[in-house]
């Protein structure tokens, strides 16, 4: 991803496509898009990844989180034909030389998060997937169908501490 961001490396982008595009399509199909529209959305997502690569910051997020976020936005933009409201940008420039220890911290955290997800029962896992892949209806959300968030919460909490620290730094500048 950094090769895509920093040197506009098309071969590296092709590898990113090979890894994420088939998974993205699977996710987009789950939330109800038809075959043709799903591929249109995948293409839009990957094009956005290419165009907004400069905004990717490995000190804050894994590539997969960043792409997940773009995918959810683009799918809504395409399906609802309206722009989804997004939070204000914090107005920072990602650094050319990311701090290696912070990048490693993000990776470690993400590994632990995946392990925590892997430890869920199949039922819990299925509810979590539904919630994060947009398969829940508005009514489900209002009824609060009991997301088993508790099990992954300790992992999220650790990430929160680090992110809060990072954001504080950005605000103070």
């Amino acid at each position, binding site marked *: 991803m950094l090769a895509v961001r920093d040197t506009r490396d098309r071969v590296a982008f092709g590898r990113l496509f*090979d890894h994420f*595009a088939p998974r993205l399509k*699977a996710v987009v199909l789950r*939330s109800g898009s038809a075959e043709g529209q799903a591929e249109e959305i995948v293409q839009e997502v990957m094009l956005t990844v290419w165009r907004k690569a400069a905004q990717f910051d490995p000190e804050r997020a894994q590539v997969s989180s960043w792409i997940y976020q773009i995918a959810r936005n683009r799918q809504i933009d395409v399906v609802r034909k309206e722009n989804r409201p997004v939070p204000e940008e914090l107005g920072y420039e990602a650094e050319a030389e990311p701090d290696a220890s912070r990048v490693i911290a993000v990776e470690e955290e993400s590994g632990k998060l995946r392990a925590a997800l892997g430890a869920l029962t199949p039922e819990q896992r299925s509810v979590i997937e539904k919630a994060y892949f947009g398969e829940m209806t508005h009514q489900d*959300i209002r009824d609060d169908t009991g997301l088993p968030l508790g099990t992954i919460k300790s992992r999220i909490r650790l990430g929160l501490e680090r992110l809060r620290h990072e*954001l504080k730094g950005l*605000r103070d500048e």
Partner: protein
Amino acid sequence: MTQIVHHVPERLLVAYAAGTLPQAFSLVVAAHVSMCDQCRAALEAHHAVGGALLEDEPKSDLSERLKADLMSRLDDAVPDEPVYRREGPFPAPVVAAMQGRGPRWTKLGGGVKQSILSADATGSVRLLSIPGGQAVPDHTHGGLELTLVLQGAFADETGRFGAGDLEVANDDLEHKPIAEAGPDCICLAATDAPLRFRALVPRLLQPLFRI
């Protein structure tokens, strides 16, 4: 900025991250996150969960031309998207919802003003401006109501809400918010159903004002 004490509930933040919240509620969540580092960090943590699930997802087959099509589009001109910034009490997503033009207030009586940003079958979102010390009429909710304070403060039966605070009201809450003395209290309020006022007169006025 004063300390924010009322945040976005976890399930709403997950729904926002996943894109399942109706547009009106999404705007309120995006506005709160713009004002609140704690919820911004929480949102990014939810993106990490989404990303981890994405990594584990089995691959679907792509049509043969998809990759080549995409690679040929990399040099296409990038369409210009307007960039909105915070203006006064209004965070960027609210400015974007007004297309940068600022609120168009209509009077509701008693110095209370509103500016409807959008209203459709899935819900409505509007700005409300209440003079300091003034009350909003008694009402119950036919659905879910999210109210984000952008300026000033109000208090009701459930507590005090200052700038950045988010109140989540459900069907069963009947409340009477009163703006704190001081500058006008400006709120961003979204519902998925029309509000029902207790007193007869405001109810008759409802279709007129769409509140």
